């Protein structure tokens, strides 16, 4: 996904003179050709994530469309107040594109992990959150974001599904059956494997904010399983709001709050958080009874 992001954003910078890119050293090498062609619009501020976001706000206030990129723990966790004030409070927008959410940085340790990025953005107003499940879903998100000035978050991950659904903004039904299981982004493949042979409806979205509330209401008969690749319960308020006034039972599966002080691969961490197919199947079967 990271390579797709670099290629798509490089092309956007060539085509649209309104676009700009702000980096804080991460991926700077990959964007070197773009920077040579557009030195005034491809900016690397060094290891300064607060400044990166402030610069994005300033660029937006002069009419440009800034793309901002770093590891999720730096772009979101560290610079949270800049996202809140230098973008939101200024009524300005940017496209924040991250890598290293949740446990993608498994070998790097917890300093390089951010399971809470989408939850943090959930405290702020007006963010569209894209969680692509396949690299072919990424270019359309980036291109669409160039056409307006709103606040957009694109969460790239190393975990990918085997198939792309570029129109995955609304809940898209992939299997029809009983209770609804919603898979966000890269959780789709493990969910499909986990629910093989179970009488459930499986729906997919790569845009959990704003959550497709109409779709959720239409597909929910009474029970909902939310499966997200970041902090468990991140979408609890959005689901509750969508189903307000209707009897329903819901469980939220995702990354646990407890730091797992182990390295290993992202697959190891997925297993530890119960987000591999076997762990998901157990949780879903336990919940549905």
């Amino acid at each position, binding site marked *: 996904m990271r390579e797709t992001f670099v290629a798509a954003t490089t092309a956007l910078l060539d085509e649209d003179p309104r676009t*700009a890119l*702000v980096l804080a050293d991460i991926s700077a090498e990959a964007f070197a050709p773009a920077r040579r062609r557009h030195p*005034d*619009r491809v*900016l690397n*501020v*060094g290891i*300064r994530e*607060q*400044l990166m*976001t*402030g*610069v*994005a*706000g*300033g*660029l*937006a*206030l*002069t*009419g*440009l469309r*800034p793309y901002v990129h770093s590891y999720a723990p730096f772009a979101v966790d560290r610079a949270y*107040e*800049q996202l809140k*004030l*230098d973008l939101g*409070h*200024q*009524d300005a927008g940017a496209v924040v594109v991250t890598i290293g959410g949740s446990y993608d940085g498994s070998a790097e340790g917890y300093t390089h992990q951010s399971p809470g990025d989408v939850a943090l953005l959930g405290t702020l107003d007006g963010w569209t959150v894209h969680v692509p499940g396949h690299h072919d879903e990424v270019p359309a998100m980036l291109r669409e974001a160039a056409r307006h000035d709103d606040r957009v978050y694109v969460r790239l991950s190393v975990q990918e599904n085997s198939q792309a659904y570029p129109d995955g903004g609304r809940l898209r039904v992939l299997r029809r059956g009983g209770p609804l299981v919603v898979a966000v982004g890269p959780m789709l493949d493990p969910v499909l494997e986990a629910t093989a042979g179970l009488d459930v409806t499986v729906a997919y979205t790569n845009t959990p904010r704003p959550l497709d509330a109409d779709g959720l209401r239409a597909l929910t008969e009474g029970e909902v399983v939310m499966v997200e690749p970041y902090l468990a319960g991140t979408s609890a308020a959005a689901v509750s709001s969508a189903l307000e006034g209707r009897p329903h039972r819901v469980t939220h599966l995702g990354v646990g709050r407890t730091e797992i002080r182990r390295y290993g691969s992202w697959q190891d961490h997925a297993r530890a958080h119960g987000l591999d197919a076997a762990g998901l199947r157990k949780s879903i079967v336990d919940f549905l009874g």
Partner: protein
Amino acid sequence: MTATAVHTDRLGPLLHRITGDEKHAPSAHSTLDVLWVLYDRVLRITPETVDAPDRDRFLLSKGHGPAAYYAVLAAKGFFPESWLDDLAGWDSPLGHHPDRVTVPGVEVGTGSLGHGLGLGVGMALGLRAQGFARTRVFVLVGDAELDEGSNHEAIAYAAATCLPITAIVIDNQSSTHGWPGGIAARFPGWDVAIVDGRDRNKLERVLSPRHDRPNLVVATVERKGS
């Protein structure tokens, strides 16, 4: 009598109309002369050009105690003087920290310290990328505000990239631990001028010339609380 003098004399009464934020009176009044010189003699901005893409940008980073800022903007016609009478009231566009969305002429909403310089750097970069070579960016910062680390990110980056931006630091010695070596020592690689923040002619002399690299003006005023 010049038009300038007439306006200047009106600032006092305008300031007196603003009540309710006395806690921040020292920081509000510390900026008065700098703000007046900027809006009266330096900035290319008027109420008619608040949305012009090539207007000069002034960013009040030190968003607390904006009474002088509001008084100057009112005196220059950016909004009606009557707005000054209901500071931070329910129906008032003017709060204890200014909001760019509600106050004409205000470029950034500030209050939380350490945001203006980063935004100003972004504006300078955005203006340059769009070819607005004449447009200047000024950011007013308090000396205690320099304690915020985010400012150092902006200061170092502007110096390293020779970005044309002017930071004005109001020095009323309000930083808890101060700055060994003085404020200018915190701005390596910047052009530096240190002036009496109450001397309008000297302020004009240091603020008017264009710099093609980062430029620091330290405006020294009476110590906070003195």
